[in-house]
Each structure stands twice: as structure tokens, then as C-alpha cells.
């Protein structure tokens, strides 16, 4: 449904490389996630696919149409939600929706079934101006506006940035339901925990794709074993670990420390580590092997890149 081949995009006359030789494709009906921090090149990719920017190199198609030559065909088929707030703050929920429906040559009535699930959540406030909505409600309205013309492909550029965890979770529930209706969705996010909710993901940093696979596939490809370490006095623990095991990467992960046991294949790490830490004066020591999350994978790739 969406396919990119060796796409490169630079700004400021070639001095800033935003997207660097990116290729991937998204199948029909797939929920595909572009996962990466701000400045990784996600928005540039979205804008090129939405026919708003022309790539320097490479080619791409959306719904079978070329993004440069057939931009008009693409524009009538895609729904696009840009990263920044893209509604009229001085129009009410209702007026915004009506307006976008009309601009896309349809009516709210005609495609109401598509947005019903989402719209009912904000409907009680339909007279309220969009500028006075909370982050979560704004995102829902923006999604309604992007959906109202029944697009075949939906581009959502960081729809959950700055939104609280509860609203984020609700938003992803909505995306899942949309996918069931056969809409292809390409979504980007800087939140690693949202990666597991996609069918497939591409991890992206500095304009380059680090890895593309299903979330499970990416987690399974984690090269080393990973442990969660916990003890009293966590700040000292992280210090001790990075001092005594400098070749293993250790970092805070919520209430535990994740320890990447690179090059420790032959050892029984939990036992050794527990002994060592006890000797160091720690108590309540817990060392458990764990399955890596997407965030662990991302960290691992960044660290490998740097060294």
C-alpha cells in the first residue's frame, strides 16, 4: 500500500540530512509504526508520503501512485494528521469536523460510521472550541477530521506526543479498531512502549532505519541476554555496575536496572552477580533474566552505533 525505495531528503541545500536512504513498505490493512525520537526524520517521511515534500533521491508510492507525479490522486485517498495541532482553535468540534468533511467533498453523515466510536467520546463537547480542548480530546478530534473522507491510507505523525498515558492508551485502542475496518495506518511515535501495539515497526534514528520487523521479531533478535537487577540503594547500584562491569551496558529501567550481558555467555550471571553485590554490601538483591522490550532493543542499537 505504501512503499519507499532509497528515499533521501536533505534541507538547507543538502547540509542537513533528515532522511537517509530509507526503504520500507507497508501492506494493506497493516498498522505500521515508525518509532524514533524527535529529529529522527519521521515527520519528513510523512510529509513526503503525503506529497507535501519532494524527496532528493529515491522513489515512493502510496496506494500505487507515485508521490511526485500522481500527487493529486494520492491527496484524494489519504488521511493525514500532521505532528502539530492542526485544527482551527476558534472553531467548535462540530464546525471543524463539518469543515474538513466538506473540503474533502463528503459529509459527516456519509462516513459517520467510521468515526462514531471516536466521536461519541467528544460529542458531549461538540459546541466547545477546539482551542479549549485537552490534549487527548484534540487528538481524537484531529483523528476524526483525518478519517472523515474514508481514506484508504492514514498517516498519523506523532498523534500521541505530549498526551498523557491514559489518553494514549485510548488512542491506540481506536487505531486497532480502525485497522479492523481495513484502513492501512502508518503512525509515528517517540514513545517506545507504543511499539508493541503495531503490527510491524521501523526503528529510526538520525534519518536511518535501524531495524524493521514485527515487534516480536525485533525483540527476538536482541543479541544478548538481558537481566533486571534490583537491590537497595539503586543509585549506588547503577554506579557499582557500570564501574565493575564496564563492558556490559547497564541502565535504569523504571524501578529496576537492565543489564545487557554482552560477552557473558558462559557464566551463571544471576548467581555471580548476587554474590558480588552482597559482598559490596547490597541487600534485597534480585537478578532475573527478562525478555527485552522494544526500548531495550532501541537502546542496544543506539549504543552499538556509538561504539
Amino acid at each position: 500500500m505504501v512503499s519507499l525505495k532509497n528515499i533521501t531528503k536533505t534541507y538547507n541545500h543538502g547540509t542537513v540530512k533528515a532522511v537517509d536512504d530509507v526503504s520500507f513498505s507497508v501492506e494493506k490493512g497493516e498498522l505500521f509504526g515508525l518509532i524514533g525520537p524527535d529529529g529522527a526524520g519521521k515527520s519528513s517521511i510523512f510529509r513526503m508520503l503525503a506529497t507535501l515534500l519532494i524527496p532528493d533521491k529515491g522513489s515512493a508510492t502510496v496506494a500505487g501512485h507515485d508521490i511526485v507525479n500522481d500527487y493529486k490522486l494520492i491527496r484524494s485517498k489519504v488521511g493525514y494528521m500532521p505532528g502539530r495541532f492542526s485544527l482551527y482553535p476558534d472553531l467548535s468540534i462540530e464546525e471543524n469536523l463539518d469543515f474538513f468533511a466538506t473540503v474533502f467533498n463528503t459529509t459527516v453523515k456519509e462516513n459517520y460510521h467510521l468515526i462514531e466510536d471516536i466521536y461519541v467520546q467528544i460529542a458531549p463537547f461538540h459546541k466547545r472550541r477546539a482551542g479549549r480542548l485537552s490534549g487527548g480530546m484534540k487528538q481524537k478530534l484531529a483523528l476524526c477530521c483525518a478519517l472523515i473522507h474514508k481514506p484508504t491510507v492514514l498517516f498519523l505523525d506523532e498523534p500521541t506526543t505530549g498526551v498523557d498515558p491514559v489518553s494514549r492508551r485510548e488512542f491506540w485502542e481506536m487505531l486497532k479498531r480502525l485497522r479492523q475496518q481495513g484502513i492501512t495506518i502508518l503512525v509515528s511515535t517517540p514513545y517506545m512502549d507504543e511499539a508493541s501495539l503495531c503490527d510491524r515497526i521501523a526503528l529510526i534514528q538520525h534519518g536511518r532505519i535501524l531495524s524493521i520487523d514485527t515487534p516480536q521479531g525485533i525483540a527476538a533478535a536482541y543479541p544478548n541476554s538481558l537481566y533486571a537487577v534490583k537491590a537497595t540503594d539503586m543509585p549506588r547500584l547503577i554506579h557499582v555496575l557500570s564501574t565493575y562491569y564496564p563492558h556490559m551496558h547497564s541502565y535504569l529501567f523504571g524501578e529496576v536496572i537492565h543489564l545487557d550481558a554482552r560477552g557473558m555467555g558462559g557464566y551463571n550471571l544471576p548467581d555471580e552477580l548476587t554474590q558480588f553485590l552482597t559482598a559490596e554490601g547490597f541487600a534485597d538483591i534480585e537478578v532475573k533474566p527478562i525478555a527485552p522490550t522494544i526500548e531495550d532493543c532501541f537502546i542496544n542499537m543506539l549504543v552499538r552505533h556509538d561504539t
Partner: protein
Amino acid sequence: MRQFIAFVKKEFFHVLRDRRTLLILFGMPLAQILIFGFALTNEIKNAQVVVIDHARDDASRHIINRLAASSYFEVRENVMDKNRMEAAFKEGHIKLAVVFPARFQSDLNHQNHAQIQVIADASDPNGATTLTGYVSSIIQDYQTELNEGNGLPYRITPEVRMLYNPQLKGAPNFVPGVMALVLMLVSVMMTAISIVREKETGTMEVLLVSPFKPMWVILAKAVPYLLLSLVNVLSILSMSVWVLDLPVAGNWLLLFAESTLFIITCLTLGIFISIRAKSQQVAMLISLMGMLLPTMMFSGFMFPIENMPVPLQIFANIVPAKWFYIIVKSIMIKGVGLEGIWRETLILCGITLFFFVISLKSFKIRLE
């Protein structure tokens, strides 16, 4: 078409919901008219006038009485000789002197023609013109009265002398100027800002990715401002007629048609700016510096173009407001029809076409 109407409707919501916009839209013409009409008025009340009456006859007495009766003048009679009069002018005690020659009435009676010398302090050119104008009209009235039932018409010629600024040219009239100014501001600045605002809020991105043709987006933006500007024209004109007692001598319809043309010129300018500008501030700055300032300076409304250095005179030709100012003045004050202003009208059309074409050429269907 349905899309277009929806767009225009939305645009009206933007305008009506933003108090600042509303204030600029409708408060400004009002304020301008009032400021120019009263604060900076050409009308002068109780100006100090000396009369030097060498005639001391019925006719001169009559005219002096009329001058004294009007609220414009405060007459001091015969208090000075010519030298002291000039000193009084220099010190700014008096604004105007009226001098009657010794044989005023007998000239009038025997030659049917007499002269009065009117001397004004033209260091304030507008004030001087106005005062001499008042004097002339008072004399005119008297003359009309004399001529009633009289076979041979009497003629009194006021011989006007402007002190300090003898080249003073015709009375500037501010209503055409204010019209040019207000329309410029509303049409250029508001349009430019409202389009750039969509770029800033990101809604332009969504609109571009819609089947709605980008150029239509721009045109739909222009329509509400065209209508609002016409409302402004109407309010300025009605204020000038009802509040300032300045009637429209020519054809109202022609005046409206020409105003519409000028508004369209301004709208294309505003669209052109909005295509180039990246932020609302930039759009505002360009509109103010690049449009408003030249309008004030080079339309002939505040400063006579004839007195400017040649390069500036040439530059003034590309300021649309200059042509519009001439057109409005001709229609409103002189009552000229299209036959007298077709040249200016054509020039405005040309400027409009020029900006329309380059806007069309530089309009981007993409972001960069």
C-alpha cells in the same frame, strides 16, 4: 462550489470570533475618520483675523460683519498698520488678514469689480487654505446677494496671498486618503495574516493534502475580506456624507466599482505576501512597512507628490493607493465619470493582474 462556500463560512467564523480582528476591521475606519475628521481637521474655529479696512464704506462693513458673524473667525478690526500686521503674523498671533482697498465700494459700483486682499499664514498650509476658502465663500455669498435683481453682475475678487509657502497646492481631502489607507490595511494585512496563520497552525498541511485545489484555498480566503472591505467603503462614505457633510459629487455606483477594483488589487497583494511570508509577524511587518507606509507617503494624501524629488515621483507610480486616491478624489469631489479616470483604472487593473500572475506562479502546491 459547496466546498468553496464552506470555506468562506469558516473564514467568517474566524473573523467574527476574533475581537482584535473585528476591532481592526470596523473600529479602524471609524477611528480614522474621526481622527482625520475632527482632530486633524481642516476646519478651524475662532481663528484670529485682522481686518485692515482702508475703505470704511458700506460694502466693506457688510463683509466684515459677515466675517465676524461666522464661527470661524474672531475679527480684530483696524488695530494695526501693515508693518505691525506682519510682526503679528511672525509671532503667530494672527492667522489671516483681510485688507480692503480704499475705494472698495466705488470700484464695485462703477467698475462692477473690486478686489480684496486675503493674506494667510501658510506655514500651516492646510489651515491657510481652509481659512482663505472660508473667506472666499463668505465674499461669494455677499456677491450673490448683491447680484440679485441686478442686470450687470458685480464681481469681487479676493486676491489671496500665501505667506511663507506660496506654492501651496489644492486642498488635500482626507476621505479618499482614509479610504485608501483602510482598504489597504484590511485587505492586504488581514488576508496575508489569515493565510499565514494556517501555515503556522499546520492546517495548511491538511488543506494541501485535500482534493480542494490549493488556489481555491487562497481565493476562498479572499472572498470574506472583499465583502468586509466593501462594508468598510460603505461605512466610510456614509460617515463622510452624514458626519462630515462631504457629499459624493459623482456616481456612487462607479465609486463602488472602483473601490472593488482597488480591494481586489490589495487582496492579490495580500495573497502574494502570504505566499512568501513564513510567520504572522513577517506578514504583518511586510504589510505595514511595505504597504501602509508607501500608501501614507506616496498616495498624495499627506504629502503632495509634485513636491517630491523625481525618483520618488516615479516610485509613487507603482503605489496602487496613488491611483486609487486620484480616482476617489475625482469621483467624490469633482464628480468625474469614467471618461476622466479610465487611465488610472487601467493602471490599477494592470497592477492587479501583475500580482495575480506572480502569486499564481509562486504558489506552492507543496511545503518547500
